């Protein structure tokens, strides 16, 4: 039997952000958590996601110039938040 380790919330968010920011995603998300939530990335909890999203989507909007992409990013993060909350 293979037991798969559950990815941390931070890892999950980095995985998603990677689709939009590429290799800059881990540093971008880690810095965002430290700055806007004043905590270490591994301490991220689902209820932190809306605040992180407020800042991240502004940055992604500037970088991608694609409203649909920003919407898509927001939805994916909110889905995680909801799933982790339940």
């Amino acid at each position, binding site marked *: 039997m293979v037991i798969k380790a559950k990815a941390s919330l931070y890892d999950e968010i980095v995985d998603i952000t990677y689709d939009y*920011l590429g290799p*800059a995603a881990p540093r*971008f998300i880690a*810095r*965002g958590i430290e*700055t*806007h939530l004043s905590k270490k990335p591994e301490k991220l909890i689902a209820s932190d996601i809306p605040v992180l999203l*407020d*800042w991240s*989507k*502004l*940055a992604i*909007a*500037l*970088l*991608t*110039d694609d*409203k649909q992409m*920003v919407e898509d990013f927001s939805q994916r993060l909110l889905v995680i938040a909801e799933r982790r909350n339940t």
Partner: protein
Amino acid sequence: MPKLKQPQPAVNSKDLAAEKAKTEALFDSIGEAVIATNEQGEIMRINDATTELLGYTSADLLSKNYLSTVHAFDLDGAAIPPLMRPVMRSLIEGKPVTDKLQYLKKDGSLVPVVATVSPIMLSGKPIGTIQVFRDITREQEIDKAKTEFLSLASHQLRTPATAVKQYVGILREGFVGELSADQKRAVEQAYQSNERQLKIIEDLLRVAKVDSGKMSLHRTQTNLNQLLENVMTDQAASIAKRNQTIEFKHRNVTCGAMVDAHLIRTVFENLIDNASKYSPKGARIVIDIRKSSSQVSIAICDEGVGIPRSDMPMLFQKFKRLPNPLSLESNGTGLGLYWVKKVLDYHDGQITVRSKTGSGSTFTVILPLR
């Protein structure tokens, strides 16, 4: 008690239009260029100074994505990666970011600016960014002329000052005859003054060099413990003269880094000398070196007069000297900490300061391990 009359909110469309016109007039009257972006990363507001400075029309800019419309370069002309642009840094840091950079004008030329970008907050949520920037072409020209003048003047001064050193040295060593006690004292004074003069000229020359961007690093793997011990040995006499003690904490860990040993030595010389000069007689200076996986940090702690919070912003500025109530000497140039900061910038290092008036200061140098 008289009742204060509450201001009536503008509710009708006429009032709203008047308020909007007033806000727009206010925005356009700002002498510096302003660009505001919205949640979609689009430019939502600019003022006349922006179109004037960048050469674009309002139609060229409004509703366009900011990053792909206004292109930014560093002062050397290299394109700034999007994530490193001040606007992105202000969103990542959640606070205003100020930087000097160049913007590409519509005619293809570059204009140097100093820009401050801040997140726009509404009810605690970021809803965009606003930046204020201004042309610094003239300031840069003046700065360049000043640097060139300093360099030229210092070169011209160094030659006669060095000749004075040689002739006073000949007198001092008694090569042209025995001196009386009074003559010896006078010559010694002249010799010491000339030494200080040469030191100031050297400081000016090296700052002129760093300001002109002509300084290059010769990095070698350097034992920082050894370097610090050498500086402490060199300064032992002047520290002892003030009855001060110096302690080196290294926990038997040797810290090395790829640095320009000569330049980093000048950093430690300046910081240790300052720690001693700004501390009272009998004070203790502690040097604490630590290593992590990515950097080496060297803290230089003193028990000195401390630095008032209001003086902190000018600490690393050129020609700024903070008053030292412990000393009547005024032989400093105000270039020491400016130089320290520049050398560390060249090494991608940092310097931080913690200080409390009357309780001392800690300057921490951080050098990345390459």
